[in-house]
């Protein structure tokens, strides 16, 4: 090794020295001699006899350790450059701020983050949208990840109506049992498959001079098929091994629901580069009912538990400073009342916390139960022209009955910090979140609130 080091240093020392040997300065033209006119010169430019080295010999030697240390960085750069160059050449990375004009008949392609939720891993989605008739658009989106999560969505929209077909496969969902105080040692996983067809209608009133808020009312009817399977995560036991009684009721059993609901939203949030003031209030009701035979995706599939889900969400913020420093507060309550078939309740229909669903310092799917409460306080401040930092703390838990069981003393706490990249608005974030069970790295690409 010493020999290699000696040779490399010697090489760095000798060769650049030779290369650095320059001829005596060539006669310099004065500005007056160089050009008789203001036009660019056509004469051969002044140059030394040999190329000027970017570094002198001693700099090569002294910089050798630094060069070795920065090799991994050089390697990453070598990888990133062709990817981005290809991305720009192929149009995958936009080079203009203004979308190119398109005619009605042309399909539009887009590549984006998969948006398949937490634990899905790295991946991407490809989407194509095509205008069908005036005011109606057909979109097809396929997303896949390294952890073999997939989602296929077909959407036909003609405002105010939309018809959506979706099919998802989630093979490695975390599960620790049902209840607010499940031990972290009971980590298992399950797989779930779902298909749905949803008809939705939305009416929306944009902000105007009299009312500075967006108001939207939406209603939907959906037929949904679900089935829970054995978890596929390597080295993590599948849920039926740790929770055999629960699994015996629903594992590999097809369940179909007719789901219908309504939601109302009032949103006055505004600000750049992130929303810094205003309030968002959202309330929704959703009924998971027995399937209608004529509408079922899989005729003859039994109904699972029939239940109502009430969701209330409120979010507000205030900011100060020209480059906004923003304080935000979010509160969310989910209350479910189960009618018939409580023992058939799928864990995918339970309320859940952990990871991206709330309490980011805990594993995704760390807590499951019927209801939940979740509160998050954030402080977002700029750290550079294109970077922001989000310092936040979360409290929340799941309960059999949120109104009866929720107490300040039994809330779980998670806190963390994330760095957000901003273009016109935040588009990517990477952070670390902590809880009593450890630290978790999180990342988001595409949609950062």
């Amino acid at each position, binding site marked *: *090794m010493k020999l*290699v*080091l000696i040779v*490399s240093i010697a*090489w760095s020392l000798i*060769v650049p020295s030779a*290369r650095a040997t320059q001829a005596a300065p060539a006669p*310099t*033209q*004065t*500005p007056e001699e*160089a*050009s008789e006119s203001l*036009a*660019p*010169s*056509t*004469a*051969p*430019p*002044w*140059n*030394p006899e*040999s*190329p*000027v080295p970017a570094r002198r010999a*001693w700099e*090569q030697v*002294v*910089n050798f350790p*630094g*060069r*070795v*240390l920065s*090799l991994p*960085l050089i390697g990453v*750069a070598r990888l*990133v450059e062709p990817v*981005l*160059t290809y*991305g720009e*050449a192929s*149009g995958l*990375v936009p*080079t*203009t701020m*203004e979308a*190119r*004009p398109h*005619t009605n008949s*042309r399909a539009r*392609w887009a590549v984006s983050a998969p948006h398949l939720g937490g634990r899905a891993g790295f991946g991407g989605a490809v989407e194509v949208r095509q205008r069908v008739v005036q005011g109606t658009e057909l979109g097809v989106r396929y997303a896949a990840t390294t952890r073999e999560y997939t989602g296929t969505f077909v959407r036909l929209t003609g405002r105010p109506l939309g018809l959506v077909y979706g099919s998802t496969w989630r093979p490695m969902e975390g599960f620790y049992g049902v209840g607010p105080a499940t031990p972290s040692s009971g980590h298992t996983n399950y797989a779930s498959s779902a298909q749905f067809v949803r008809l939705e209608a939305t009416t929306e009133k944009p902000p105007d001079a009299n009312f500075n808020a967006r108001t939207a009312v939406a209603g939907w009817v959906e037929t949904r098929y679900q089935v829970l399977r054995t978890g596929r995560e390597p080295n993590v036991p599948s849920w039926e091994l740790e929770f055999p009684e629960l699994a015996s009721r629903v594992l590999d059993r097809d369940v179909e629901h007719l789901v219908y609901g309504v939601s109302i939203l009032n949103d006055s949030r505004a600000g750049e580069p992130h929303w810094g003031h205003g309030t968002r209030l959202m309330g929704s009701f959703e009924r998971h009912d027995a399937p209608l035979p004529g509408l079922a995706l899989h005729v003859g599939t039994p109904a699972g538990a029939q239940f109502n889900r009430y969701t209330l969400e409120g979010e507000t913020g205030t900011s100060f*400073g020209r*480059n906004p420093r923003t304080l935000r507060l979010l509160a969310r309550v989910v209350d479910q009342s189960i009618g018939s078939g409580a023992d058939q309740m799928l864990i995918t229909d339970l309320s859940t916390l952990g990871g991206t669903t709330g309490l980011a310092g805990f594993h995704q799917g760390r807590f499951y139960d019927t209801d939940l409460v979740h509160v998050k306080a954030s*402080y977002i401040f700029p*750290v*550079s022209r294109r*970077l922001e930092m989000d310092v936040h703390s979360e409290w929340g838990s799941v309960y059999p009955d949120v109104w009866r069981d929720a107490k300040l003393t039994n809330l779980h706490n998670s806190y963390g910090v994330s760095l957000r990249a901003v*273009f*016109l608005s935040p588009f990517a974030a990477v952070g670390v979140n902590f809880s009593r069970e450890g630290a978790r790295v999180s990342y988001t690409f595409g949609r950062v609130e």
Partner: protein
Amino acid sequence: MRPAMISIAALGLLTSVVGVSQAAAPAKKDAKPESRSISGAYDLVHQSVFRPAARAFDVPRLGRKITGHPRESANVDEQDHVRLPSTWWQPRIGFREVTVEQMLKGPGSGQGPAPGPWTVTKAKSAGVSAGFQIEDSKGDGFIIKFDPPKFPEMATGADVIGSYLFWAAGYNVPENTIEWFRRQDLKIGKDATYSDSRGRKHPITDDYLNALLARVAPRPDGSYRCVASRYLDGKPIGPFLYSGRRKDDPEDMIPHELRRELRGMWTVAAWVNHADARAPNTLDMWVTDGGRSFVRHYLIDFGSILGSSALSRRRDYATGFEYYIDYGAMVRMVPTLGLYKPKWENVVDPEMPAVGFIESKNFDPEDWRPDFPNPAFDERTVRDARWGAWIVSGFTDDHIRAAVAAAHYTNASVAGYLTRVLIERRDKLVQRWLGTRGPTLITSR
């Protein structure tokens, strides 16, 4: 452990050897260098993340900085003048007398497209704003660019002012003029095409042209304002970088970060707020002129200087004060949880859409920064900055007034504001780097 260390050392050796062999490789004379392209996104990531990180390990650079012995430009003579001739820069204002009329003639005839209909030949595929390419009635080619709809006259005005000022400062630039046309003035060329987002070519149709113009704000009389940028002579061979050399150009023997013309350009860029001074806004042309073929180096696309941004909006208030990713700012902001108040938060916005955002009161003539680090600017020394200030000092109020007038702003207060800001920024730069401001500077050289 030991094999790993040997591998790392060997890799270091290899990179040194590769670096050396590349530096020593002779290039063929009179052979056109290969055309090349660079990724704007990669340039941003490289200059903002990779290169600063590599510089953090650069012990010689740190040593030079601490001991006050920076590496000076490699192409200056004993009088600290740029050794001439140069294919990068030509001594003009600051070194020779350049009248206002000569500046307005600029790099070409001072005329835009010839009267008559324009034939659209291609849709503009690069840059930040909508546009297309045309041939005028004489067959001369131009690139046509527009303003963002919410900021009429901003980008086109900046593009024209920038081309005059940078030309007068000695740099090679395209000839830009403000033009007005109507939809009926446009004809679609027989083989006119545009490229879609996947790089596939399609014929330009009336629908396409109408859709493109629908995204441009027309003037009250229905005409469209644009900047016409005349095609450069020669064959484009891609941008130049602000560091390293173009190894297949035999006349490119000085690393660009050691070139006075590029290091000293910092002062000119600071003056006109050219925060978008990066490789994608440059172009090397293979020209045949004066009986020989060679590479001439151009600065192009000044649509995001002054108060105009490359994001089809106005400049943000932090422009010139911080890089996009500014580690110095982070050191101040993170420990104080953002409660530290940067100087730029005190700036006053002129609230003029045609200006965008630029001001002079808080302008920092010592530490102005582009959007992201520029390798040549990073290596500048006091002598480089003074060289640039020498040029800036040569611009009289009349030069500035005339360049701004060439932007044909509808509102006289816009021209007045920009003229005042440029004069005040010039004076600050000259005061900082030359210690004085006086009309005798030019004649004393």
